[in-house]
Structures are given as structure tokens and as C-alpha cells.
């Protein structure tokens, strides 16, 4: 089997279009994961016992069940509950929920890394709990965990092919379709892999840059 460069070149536009779907799912899913993950981490720390415990239970549940099961579950169950979402939107919600559970654990590590003295100084200045968390704790807790959050961004990106299970025409699914139509799988699947590789490397570099910028107030 010989790699047909011309065929690969002809296939590329289709794959690039599908790549947009994959990237959109990742970006939106990560936005959900980052925001919801922070909310979960804060709820987990809440002084309200019922909230803290139910959040811990939810996080454990999500982390202990496969992403694919969660994707199927949302896709087939949500419409029955009167929530009609497109396959793409369902996929974004599933990725977001799943990774929110992981991100919340990362945020938690960030919060745990803040010295007690910071909370006490905030109290001594009479800052409200809202301002203490929003102005003192979160800005210090997040920069150190950006690399860990970035790992989950790349992991989520690589999990997007699972959305093909609920008919989302993302990158891998499109590669397979091209293969099925032309009986040539080598070129499209190689390109799919290469595209994942290139984008993963770019995101990793972007995260390192962000990390450096966020750490500017730390001693050189």
C-alpha cells in the first residue's frame, strides 16, 4: 500500500471542515468544564454540608463512569425529559460535564495550596467571603493549576471522536466516511492523526505561554 499524496491533498478540505466541528466541541466543552468545574470546587468547599456532600457524590459518580456511557445517556435520555438538543450540543454538554468533574479536582488542589494566612489576612481586613474568594483566593489558586487544566484540554480534544457515537460528524467520523466512500483508509486516517497531533502540540504551547503570563507577579 502506497501513500497517495494527491488523494490525501484532495481529502484535506473535507477533513478541515470536520476539524472545525472538533475544535468547536472542544472549545465549548472546555468552557463548560472550566466554569462548571470551578462552581463544583466551590460547592465542594461550601459550609453547607448537604451541598458539599452532594457535590462530592456527583463528582465521584462522573469520574467513575465512562465518558461514552455518559454521552449515550444524555443523547437518549434528555429528549425524554423534554430537553431537545442537537447531537452536537449534547456532545458539548457531555464533554463539559465529564471534564468539569476532573477540573473541579484540579481547582481543589489549587485552593488547598493557598496558605491559611491569606484567608486570615482577608478576614482581618474584613473582606466578605465573596471578595475573599473572588479577589484573593481564586487569582492565586488558578495560575499554578493552569498546566493541569491544560492537560485536560488536550485530553478532551482527543476524546471528541467519541461524539461520533451520537452522529456528530467530527474529524474521525469524517475520515471514516471518506474511507468508506473511496475504500482508501490510509490517507484520511493518517491525516486525522496528524491533525490531532498538530493541534495538541499547538494547544500545549499556548498553555505554556499562558502559564508564563499568569505567573508574572511571582519572584523571578
Amino acid at each position, binding site marked *: 500500500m502506497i501513500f497517495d499524496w494527491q488523494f490525501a491533498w484532495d481529502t484535506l478540505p473535507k477533513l478541515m471542515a470536520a476539524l472545525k466541528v472538533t475544535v468547536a466541541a472542544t472549545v465549548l466543552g472546555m468552557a463548560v468544564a472550566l466554569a462548571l468545574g470551578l462552581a463544583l470546587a466551590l460547592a465542594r468547599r461550601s459550609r453547607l454540608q448537604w451541598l458539599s456532600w452532594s457535590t462530592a457524590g456527583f463528582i465521584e459518580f462522573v469520574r467513575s463512569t465512562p465518558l461514552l456511557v455518559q454521552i449515550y445517556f444524555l443523547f437518549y435520555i434528555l429528549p425524554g425529559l423534554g430537553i431537545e438538543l442537537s447531537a452536537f450540543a449534547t456532545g458539548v454538554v457531555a464533554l463539559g460535564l465529564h471534564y468539569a468533574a476532573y477540573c473541579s479536582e484540579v481547582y481543589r488542589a489549587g485552593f488547598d495550596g493557598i496558605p491559611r*494566612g*491569606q484567608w486570615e489576612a482577608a*478576614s*482581618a481586613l*474584613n*473582606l*466578605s467571603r465573596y471578595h475573599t474568594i473572588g479577589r484573593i483566593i481564586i487569582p492565586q489558586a488558578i495560575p499554578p493549576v493552569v498546566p493541569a487544566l491544560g492537560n485536560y484540554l488536550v485530553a478532551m480534544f482527543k476524546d471528541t471522536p467519541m461524539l461520533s457515537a451520537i452522529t456528530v460528524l467530527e474529524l474521525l467520523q469524517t475520515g471514516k466516511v471518506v474511507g468508506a466512500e473511496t475504500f482508501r483508509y490510509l490517507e484520511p486516517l493518517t491525516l486525522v492523526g496528524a491533525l490531532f497531533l498538530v493541534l495538541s502540540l499547538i494547544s500545549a504551547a499556548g498553555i505554556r505561554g499562558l502559564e508564563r503570563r499568569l505567573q508574572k507577579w*511571582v*519572584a523571578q
Partner: protein
Amino acid sequence: MNPIIRLRGVHKAYGELAVLRGIDLEVPAGQTVSVIGPSGSGKSTLLRLLMTLDRPDQGVLEIDGESPWTMEKNGSQQPADERHLRQVRGKVGMVFQHFNLFPHMSALHNVMEALLRVLRLPRTEAEARARERLSAVGLADKADAYPAHLSGGQKQRVAIARALAMQPKVMLFDEITSALDPELVGGILALLHEMSSKRTMTMVIVTHHMRFAESCSDRVVFFDEGVIVEDGAPKAIFHEPRHERTRRFVDAILGPEA
């Protein structure tokens, strides 16, 4: 006149460890009180209770006539809500041994933060007051520096400016020179002395500097094993202690015949 600080029968334990075992203390407004005693005697715990960082297990604690942890409601004492706690807490400020500056904010913004968020001053006014306080501690030129780029002494000055900017009625100082290099201690003590000589604030100073306690305070309280052993004028405590434990502590630190 009512005392600004009043403690009666205050007990505090951390787990099994009884740190304060029945503290009675009244401090009139404007007084400078030094608290001395061996490590682990409960001095810092006293300040933590006064700052409302911790609550007493037992006993009465009042700041300016009000208990931070209880409030009167419908004619009976109820557990305080957040608003009441913060209203009382606002009368007290504290400087910590390890400064506890916010590392992600410049010196200026460390001082401004609570002025903006708690006192809700307009930005220009908050900045003016913060700059003025930084000048007062000799750091006008370090306003834009981040804590990581300041020396220990400079950090502690920012922390003092930050607490003073809130204009509390009571200021608490918890071993604020203990984490400093020896050559920086003098400057910070001089700053404390300057503050106490104005007599505008009530100051409670936990310190290991006996000469400072003697020369700068109106009153010295000697703590040991969670109780106040002796409480009196600096001269009396350092030169004519009535209790054997006070004598041994003072002698151990100053040397006999000091």
C-alpha cells in the same frame, strides 16, 4: 468609660489542647498593651480571638461593647449573622508575623483592596489614602512593587499600612518582628512606638522584645499556660514582679539584675 476590649472567663481549646484557660481582661480605649510570655502560652490565640479569626469555646468576648458571635434579636441573644460579625470585625485590624500580603497585588493594591471592597471608597480616594499610608511607613517609592520584590521589613511595613488604612479602633500585632532579619527589627519597632505615642488607637502587641514592651506600652500582660499570671505597669512587671513565674521569665530573657 466602657473598655474597648472585654474578656471574661474566656476558654479556647484546639482539639485536646487547652490553649486559653479562663482569661479575664479589660482594655480601655487608647491603651497600648504588650502581651509577653513563653511560646505556646496562648498569646497568639488571644489575638486570633480578638480578630474573630476563631471563636471562644466559653466565656464573654466583647469589642467596643459588642460580642462578635452573638447578637440581640427580638429581645434575646441569638447566634450572630455574617453582617453583625463583620460590623464588629471592622473595628479591629491585625498585623501578622508572616505579613500575609497578597502576592498577586502590588503594595499599593494590597492597601487599596479593602478600602475599595469593604469601605467602598471611590477609587481616587482609596488610592490617595493608600499612598499616604505607604508614605507614612516610608514606602512611597515602593507603591508599585509586588511583595516578592520587597524585603521582609518592607513587607511588614506594607502590612502595617494596609491594616492602618482601615482606621480600626483596635490594632493587634502578632510578633510582627519575629520573621525579620535582626537589622530590620529596630525600624519596625520605631514605627510601632510612633503609632502608640499618638494614643489614638488601642494597641495589643504580642512581642518578645522586653525592652520595647517596657518603654512603649502603658501596660504589660504576662501569659503562661493559658492564663494571665500578671498584669500591670511595665515597671512593675519587669522590676518588681509579684509572681515567681513572671520573675523567672523576665530573668531568663533580660538576664538577672537587668
